[in-house]
């Protein structure tokens, strides 16, 4: 039985592009910057509508972050865009000093996060970006799950005052969340109700978690699936309520175990409600070239892997 259905598949980065196009028409304070990747970030619509509010920085990400910080003075809301590797790891200190410590209202919006950028390989497949960004005091970290949610998140962060890291990806994935949804930063979304195991998923792994819940249901296991689109601030109330009911938890993300959603959840539960827990993610390894689906299978980031971890964690209750 299908718990969720979808009609089309789209890339989350196109959801970002659609959100930016909306903002070009509805928020005159939003400005966009890009480091020579306009097509990859789907910024054509924004630039067509608001060419004077777009700044091409060339392949110079450090400068892009500094310019973004400067543009906030005078009331602008800069969206600094590039691939996740170049927008976080490469410019960590610029984000740390000029944005986070300086408390600037900059939105760092990055595509091609994780393994699913595919063939370009490990140089581009950052799996540490959530950790890098969530460690910065005051930084909000968001990883939406599909086109519609990425569009909604893009629009929502413009109305939030403060630095945000918005992470999305390259491949087309099922569009299963509602069109024109309201996005609430830090508010986890219950997708499937269950009593046997909690699955907390973020980004591309949310759809896989739903598929896993369907497979578990066929085995008579009722999994609860929660979409943690915001890793920081974490919706600890929603997580706590669910694990109190199910007594065990699996986290799923396209990221290293270290620094990801899983370790935020583990830290919270260890202090407040110790619970058997398993992780679906990349375990201290770089990625490699390949097709997205092949990589997700090889590194254990799909529905099958979530099912196996769910069964394992239930045995530990």
């Amino acid at each position, binding site marked *: 039985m299908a718990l969720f259905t979808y009609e089309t598949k789209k890339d989350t980065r196109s959801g970002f592009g659609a959100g930016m196009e909306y903002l070009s028409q509805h928020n005159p304070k939003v*400005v966009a910057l890009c480091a020579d990747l306009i097509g990859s970030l789907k910024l054509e619509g924004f630039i067509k509508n608001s060419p*004077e*509010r777009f*700044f091409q*920085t*060339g392949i*110079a990400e*450090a*400068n*892009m*972050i*500094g*310019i*973004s*910080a*400067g*543009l*906030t*003075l*005078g*009331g*602008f809301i*800069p969206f600094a865009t590039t691939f996740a590797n170049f927008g976080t790891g490469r410019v960590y*200190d*610029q984000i*740390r*000093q*000029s944005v986070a*410590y*300086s*408390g*600037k209202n900059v939105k760092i919006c990055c595509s091609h996060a994780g393994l699913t950028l595919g063939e370009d390989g490990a140089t581009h497949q950052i799996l540490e970006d959530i950790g890098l960004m969530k460690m910065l005091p005051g930084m909000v970290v968001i990883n939406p799950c599909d086109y519609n949610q990425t569009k909604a998140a893009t629009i929502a962060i413009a109305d939030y005052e403060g630095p945000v890291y918005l992470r999305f990806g390259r491949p087309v994935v099922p569009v299963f969340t509602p069109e024109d949804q309201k996005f609430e930063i830090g508010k986890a979304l219950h997708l499937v109700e269950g009593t046997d195991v909690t699955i907390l998923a973020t980004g591309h792994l949310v759809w896989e978690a739903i598929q896993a819940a369907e497979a578990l249901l066929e085995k008579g296991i009722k999994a609860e699936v929660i979409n943690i689109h915001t890793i920081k601030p974490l919706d600890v109330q929603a997580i706590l309520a669910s694990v109190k009911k199910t007594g065990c938890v699996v986290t799923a993300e396209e990221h290293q175990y270290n620094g990801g959603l899983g370790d935020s959840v583990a830290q919270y539960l260890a202090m407040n409600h110790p619970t058997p827990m398993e992780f679906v993610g990349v375990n201290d390894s770089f990625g490699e070239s390949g097709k997205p689906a092949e990589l997700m299978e090889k590194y254990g980031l799909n529905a099958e892997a979530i099912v196996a971890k769910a069964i394992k964690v239930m045995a530990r209750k």
Partner: protein
Amino acid sequence: MQTQEIQKISSQVRRDILRMVHGCQSGHPGGSLGCTDLLVDLYFSTMNLKTDAAGKVVFDMDGTNEDLFFLSNGHISPLIYSVLARRGYFPTAELATFRKIDTRLQGHPTPHEHLEGIRIASGSLGQGLSVAIGAAQAKKLNGDKSTVFCLMGDGEQNEGQVWEAAMYAPHHKVDNLIAFIDENGQQIDGPTEKVMSNRDLEAKYKAFGWNVMRMDGNNAEDIQNTLNKAKAELGKGSPIMIIMKTEMGAGVDFMMYSHKWHGVAPNDQQLQDALAQLEETLGDY
């Protein structure tokens, strides 16, 4: 403002710098003393700053319709703190808290502690020019005709980000920006020529498309004349870079012509010897 008046303020600012660094036995007096004449000119004469009806400066983060200054080489924090306090942004008594626990006057400047006059954190080098360019572009978008100023060190020119910014500003015609390089020829590991030669900075910035000028950064008259000349070049399509020759430790004879005082505080006797060379013009804090 007459240059004699600027020199009077500079003498007091230099006293402040020495006393602040002595007070916490920490900080960077050499570069602070070297750049004093420029910052006093900017804040007391050249820059148009927002004031209330009584003429007192008022601070808001956005800084629209006023000139803005960004300090990229944040380690000369005693200088910016003294100048901001003397200009009226916060009480001069607060200078005594420099680098001490719970202070707003952190080792390197930051808006994190809500200190009036500071708009960006600096200290990790190479970032200020990018921020200044962004602020200048924000002014253009807002139709704000005021000017953005930025000071960098010459050692700071080692940082790659500086050259990303150097390439960007002329390409985007950021012509409401006047930047400075403090060419004191020294950095932590020795003379700039030995550590990492900047070679011909003037030729480099010219090649990137900047309107480049030179001045003596320890000569109040030359500073005023050069800034007047630079202001006349604003709005002509190119950002302006002023390479200013300064002497680290300027104003205190035994701190000059050496790199020794980059990041060293004077002891009690050295403080007395230094203060004896600088007239107390506005009253010590």
